[in-house]
């Protein structure tokens, strides 16, 4: 197996995307704060974007589609980060904490 030729194979990109997704799931389960969970969510979105880019490079007849979809994923991720940040700040004002087990009652 030639490690230097891995950049030309589709599987290596897919494996990298799968590993990123797995790390994101791991962080999402492990984290105890809302901000940490948001960071792991960004990793999962990045893994999805990498898969779209891979398929547009190797498989799609029209490579523009995957690229534009990746740009849209980035836009959605930016909107999600802004909304998530303001929700975290609102939660912090009410509970003085962003630990997920402190924020346990609905009647804030």
């Amino acid at each position, binding site marked *: 197996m030639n*490690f*230097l*030729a891995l*950049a030309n194979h589709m599987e*290596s*990109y*897919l494996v*990298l*995307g*799968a*590993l*990123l*997704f*797995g*790390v*994101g*799931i*791991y*962080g999402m*389960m*492990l*984290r*105890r704060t809302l*901000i*940490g969970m*948001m*960071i792991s969510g*960004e*990793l999962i979105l*990045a893994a999805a974007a*990498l898969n779209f*880019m891979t398929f*547009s*490079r*190797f*498989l799609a*007849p*029209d*490579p*523009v*589609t995957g*690229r*534009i979809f990746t*740009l*849209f994923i*980035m*836009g959605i*991720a*930016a*909107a999600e*980060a*802004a*909304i998530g*940040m*303001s929700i*975290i*700040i*609102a939660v*912090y*004002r009410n509970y003085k904490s962003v630990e997920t087990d402190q924020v346990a009652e609905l009647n804030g």
Partner: protein
Amino acid sequence: MSIMTPEGLAGLIFLFLAAVTLAGALIAASTVRLPRAVAGLALSFTGLAGIFYFLNSPFVALMEMLIYVGAVCVAIVFAIMMADPGVEKGASSRATAIPAGFSAALGALFAAGLIVLARNTMWPPPAARLNDGSVIQVGHGLITTYSMVFELISIVLLMAIIGALVLARKGRDPE
């Protein structure tokens, strides 16, 4: 393939970028201090931008640096500064806490399943390439085929700005 050829050197850079991406992701997912996690996230996205370069699209790599490293990471840094979570407390204080080993096992299970699926599937090569996917083609796509989605995402971003302002302003002490 020798390492002294251009292709060999490119392969080495690809391996380095993949390692940077994974190392940054691991730092982002598992460090105790959240500022370090954001730094790991920025490192991971920088490596991912290089990977996008290998996928023949420098434009998306540039956007990755601008939006993810430049905007999303900075937004998360602002959230950390305003909410000040400090050091994450361990999971031991909670009866219903998910143990770290279970989290790692679940993440490894998802990753292994996807890897097996990716390696065992017969991916059919494309019958024909319509274009080379250059920046010009992406621009044409954005104002022709995908113009509706392009407008819709601008509305989504506008709603996100207004919603973030409304959510973050409420509860602020009147001066």
